């Protein structure tokens, strides 16, 4: 029993959140640059299979956070007005 508990706790010690998880955390904290990188990564070509839904989600969020390159990338350039952010 002790061995099982130890094995589980050891696993939890060495089980790291990865690079992508760190970026997701940052994006959730509204770090636009992290959202942009994530969106770009999920467009494919970086060793991660393309996932249009995730790419759209993260690039849209980065754009909403005011990251111009994200807006350009997803062709969602718009002149923002106050109140547009959550559209």
């Amino acid at each position, binding site marked *: 029993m002790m061995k099982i508990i130890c094995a589980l706790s050891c696993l939890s*010690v*060495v089980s*790291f*959140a*990865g*690079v*992508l*998880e*760190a*970026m997701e*955390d*940052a994006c959730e*904290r509204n*770090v636009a*640059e*992290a959202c*942009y*990188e994530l969106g*770009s*990564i999920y467009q494919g070509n*970086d*060793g*991660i*299979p393309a996932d249009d839904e995730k790419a759209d989600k993260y690039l849209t969020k980065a754009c909403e956070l005011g990251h111009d390159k994200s807006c350009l990338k997803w062709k969602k350039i718009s002149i923002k007005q106050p109140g547009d952010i959550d559209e």
Partner: protein
Amino acid sequence: MNKYFLLLLSSLLFISIASAETIRIMPLGDSITEDWAFSDQYSPRPDSLKSGYRNYLWYALKAAKYDVDFVGSHKLGSAIRPAFDIDNEGWSGLKSTEVALSNRPPGGFYDRLIKYRPHIILIHLGTNDWSSSVGGIRSILNEIDNFEENYQFHVKVIVAKIINSREPNSIFSSFNKNLESLVRQRNADGDDVVLVDMEHGAGIYYDSRDFQDRIHPNNSGYRKMANVWFNALDKILKHDNYAFLVPVYHMLLN
């Protein structure tokens, strides 16, 4: 007179012992030190094939005939040839803010210092922070200071302005600017920290020539990083004549 003679003798003896000692170097970092890339998320390479900058640095140090030992609890790169010292503390996803405050690296950073007693630590951390704050690096330096004080052991720290992403991102540049200020302040306060510039001082091309994905260098990029580390280490090991060990000597005398 005899007292001074004995002091001189013990001084020469200590310096010769210190100079003969294998210098333990701890590479501390995240996926860039571990050598993890996004492609490993879905097609993981075995740990035995991960080397990053570490093998290139090892080859350079050995070519220069330095007696060094990489230390750390993570062992990555055993199948890489030529063989190199695979010990390190590079952990994919590691944030600088986690090192001094949590059990990451596994076992805890402070315990790793006690176990390995590195003479020199190479720090390339901050990429996973996604912040311009260098509070995490400050905590690491504080932790090293605590270790030095508690164990009367001097550690030379070489901290890097981190490489930017393939499409340069302002958040990393801001982090690096703040890191420069932090190091300046720490040295003014008596710390022994060397700053190296991986962002602009390594000659890294911020495109596919030196990157395998948006964040991680390829072998060409890692070679350039190794050059920067080597130049800093070479200066310490050769030109400074291990002067960083002198404070230990003074402690022994007192």
